């Protein structure tokens, strides 16, 4: 049978994104050299437009489109919004710094990647999931290796590729096993069939799949590409990867684990808890010595993945999933903001070394102030976004009796203080190398401002977000 029109409507945002990608390419064609920024503008505008249909779906009844292969529910919508906003901000931030040919393609690829991420978040069919996953991966490889002139970027690209390709190969093998166990690829049918299937094979399949998801969310032990890629890739791309694809990865992970791999029968809590603990600890310890802001943020993003995993591990409680979502949202704004400052410094000072941030409070007061806020937020101090997230995940851990995990999380928070404060120290305490003010380009300022606002607002008045999150979680399972 053929898909009906309702199905088409229900993927309006996705369609729009696809179209937008092409549109950007066209704009890029028509706009002469030097005025490629137009393409970026178009991309940003289009993404913001895509928010309209997306947010319109917030209140829809949960259902699937395309014969159960595509889920339309608050959960998906939540992630769509996160992803789209993140992409828009990233493009805004990129517009000033990036001056290569293929600029238009850059934006287009970002848009397509966003589309892939959106699909990942909503895919309810293993095949579609695999597709979306690869769509994202392929685009990301290219974006990471974008600056062909720079060896670092090349290295990032090829490392990312090898790592990703292997990971997805492993994941596909896992998919195939799950398919074999269930005889179907539709996530919502799988649990029905799985009831009778034995555990070992299932664990095998899931373990193999985790390789893929773990790679996307950079969970230990699938995390090691992160620092190299973040350092090598263009900073905006790093920001994008650390936020958007991580978010989508979590979305897919949650959906697969909770919907397909019947949680009632399989107890993931302990496994995930251990992974969370290891991930956050390792990420922190490795972040400590970094003096390159991007590497530092990379490792910190690993440790944050650990914190997010607490939310996954504590899915049984009432705080787990909401915790994960709110944490992700807060983390999105904060991390993006931090990376944007890195973009600014990287493009203005041609350096990513934290020591070069010395005296930033005088040279670029606004950015420095925001950066300080971001750092404190990443540490998890109130009243900032990530604090609310941490509050939730800690609550979730305690609620589900994972007190030890909460303790580890706290210790890690304390450790993380070191390197975050290190940045603040550089900006505010150390003497400036030169007093010449650093120009703060408008578009970047806008992106920064939005990120900062998001960080503070979520921290100060999270209620609306919480409502959003609640119906996102309520709608998760059909």
């Amino acid at each position: 049978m053929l898909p009906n029109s309702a199905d088409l409507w229900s993927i309006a945002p996705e369609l729009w994104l696809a179209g937008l990608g092409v549109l950007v390419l066209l704009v890029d064609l028509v706009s002469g050299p030097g005025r490629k920024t137009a393409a970026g503008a178009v991309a940003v505008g289009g993404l913001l437009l895509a928010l309209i249909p997306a947010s319109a779906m917030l209140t829809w009844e949960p259902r699937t489109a395309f014969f159960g292969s595509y889920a339309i529910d608050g959960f998906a919508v939540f992630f769509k919004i996160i992803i789209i906003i993140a992409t828009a901000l990233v493009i805004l931030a990129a517009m000033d710094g990036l001056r290569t040919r293929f600029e238009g393609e850059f934006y287009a690829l970002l848009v397509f990647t966003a589309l892939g991420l959106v699909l990942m978040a909503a895919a309810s069919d293993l095949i579609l999931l695999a597709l979306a996953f690869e769509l994202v991966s392929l685009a990301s490889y290219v974006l990471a290796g974008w600056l062909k002139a720079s060896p670092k970027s090349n290295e990032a690209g090829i490392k990312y590729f090898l790592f990703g390709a292997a990971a997805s190969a492993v994941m596909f093998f896992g998919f195939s096993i799950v398919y074999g166990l269930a005889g179907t690829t539709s996530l919502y049918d799988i649990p029905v069939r799985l009831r009778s299937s034995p555990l070992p094979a299932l664990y095998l399949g899931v373990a193999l799949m985790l390789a893929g998801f773990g790679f996307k969310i950079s969970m230990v032990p699938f995390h090691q590409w992160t620092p190299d890629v973040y350092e090598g890739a263009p900073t905006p791309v790093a920001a994008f990867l650390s936020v958007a694809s991580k978010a989508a990865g979590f979305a897919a992970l949650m959906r697969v684990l909770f919907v397909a791999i019947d949680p009632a029968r399989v107890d993931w809590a302990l496994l995930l808890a251990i992974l969370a603990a290891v991930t956050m600890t390792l990420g922190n310890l490795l972040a400590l010595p970094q003096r390159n802001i991007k590497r530092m943020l990379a490792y910190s993003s690993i440790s944050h993945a650990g914190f997010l995993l607490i939310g996954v591990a504590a899915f049984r409680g009432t705080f787990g999933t909401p915790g994960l979502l709110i944490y992700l949202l807060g983390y999105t704004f904060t991390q993006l903001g931090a990376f944007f400052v890195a973009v600014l410094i990287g493009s203005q000072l041609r350096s990513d070394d934290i020591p070069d941030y010395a005296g930033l409070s005088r040279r670029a007061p606004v950015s420095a102030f925001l950066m300080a806020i971001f750092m404190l937020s990443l540490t998890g101090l109130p009243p900032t976004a990530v604090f609310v997230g941490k509050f939730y995940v800690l609550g979730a851990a305690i609620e589900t009796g994972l007190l030890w995990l909460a303790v580890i999380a706290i210790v890690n928070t304390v450790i993380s203080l070191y390197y975050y404060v290190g940045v603040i120290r550089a900006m505010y305490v150390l003497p400036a190398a030169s007093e010449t003010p650093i120009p703060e380009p408008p578009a970047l300022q806008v992106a920064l401002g939005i990120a900062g606002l998001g960080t503070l607002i979520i921290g100060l008045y999270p209620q609306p977000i919480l409502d959003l999150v609640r119906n996102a979680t309520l709608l998760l399972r059909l």
Partner: protein
Amino acid sequence: MLSLITFLPLAGGLLILLLPKTNHALMKNVSLLASGASFVLSLALLGMYQIGGGMQFQELYRWIPGIAINYHLGVDGLSLPLVVLTTLLSVLSLIYSWRIDLRLKEYLFLFLLLETGMLGVFLALDFFLFYIFWEVTLVPMFFLIAIWGGPRREYAAIKFFLYTLVGSLAMLLAILILYFNSDPRTFSVPELIRQQPLAGQPLLAALAFWGFFLSFAVKVPMWPFHTWLPDAHVEAPTAGSVILAGILLKMGTYGFVRFSLPLLPEAFKQYAVIVAVLALLGIVYGALVAMAQTDLKKLVAYSSVNHMGFVMLGVAAAAAAFGEPDKAQAATTALNGAVFEMVAHGIITGALFLIVGVIYDHRAHTRGVDEFGGLGSRLPVYTGISTMAMLASLGLPGLMGFVAEFLIFVGSFGIFPYFTAVALTGLVFNAAMFLWTIQRIFLGPFNERWAHLPDMDGREKLSLVPLAVLMLIFGIYPRPLLDVINAAMAVLVGVVR
């Protein structure tokens, strides 16, 4: 009303951010205006407050109803004095900081932010809100130390930040434990006190207790968590030290009295002896170590350890008396003493740090106790006030410190007679320590090196004399203050009993 008091300083701070960087006078005036206004309001609060009226001026708004978090402020006999103390010390510190002009804008903003945070801590009745304010105080203090501090400021700042963060995160766990064991789940402190969520569960109660303990004990600071204090004090700028010693430390003891005691009475009773022993160590140890210090600020810092030890002794005694009606009287007395000591120590140590600042910041630029001598003959006013403050600090009757210590001892003697007896030796060491200091700095032959030192100027007098007057008044007739406290403590003991 309370919100106004709390957020006026912050508003001022934000306003300052908008002012032109160059116009120092304006910024200073604005800051003074903001915190001054909040001070006046707090006085008005004092005026309107009905003694024995329980929680008053409550403000309750739904904030994050999703998880039962409210914006809930309220003031009672415990918090009121501390609030007034906070506003007062802030104003005085601002007056004192008049000479600062290094990165003035940031300084004032952070300072006012800090004030808001502290006021919030004392006024918040919702754990979430409390926690936020609690953490908010952390950051500005860190900056104040790290930017305007002494040579090893960064080390001290991060040490301070670190210790307190560890503590406060532990507290966060405790809070969450309480939350998840309450039914209906709530962060509201009065509600939790009513529910006594952990009454039946010793293990969880113990966990929660130690969670709170870690956080508060670090703030107090209790032995052996005190080591951040000397560094922080020594490196912090004068105003910072004043606020740190005068108010931030009280946040810890306040936490013990406000939360640990009524929320986890059994647990606290169970571990009261340990707490008392630690307090005792703090008392004797603090005094002895202070005696060995040559840096005036360190000396005062350690004396703070000693005094906060007295406070904790009182609190622990009160906790130990839980569930024994015949000791309720003693418990009340001890708590009265403890809270009174909080205020007294706030005033006295605040004054002491200002005094150190007077000699260090703009005159001698050294704090070496042994480098002075005979200042008494050249700086009579300064000598007078300093001597008075130090005498007050060593618990001389007729001055504020004595009243507090007397009450604490009277109360705790009924519960921990032997501990109290030991604690009293702390008094002797204190006396010896301070008098020796006085002798080394003000007495003896005049050290010609300081021939040029001028006596205190008007601004310094303005910031010190009020404190001196308060020491004297409450030292002679503590009743006005004590009645306010006593009512609240009676209620508290009633609850705990």
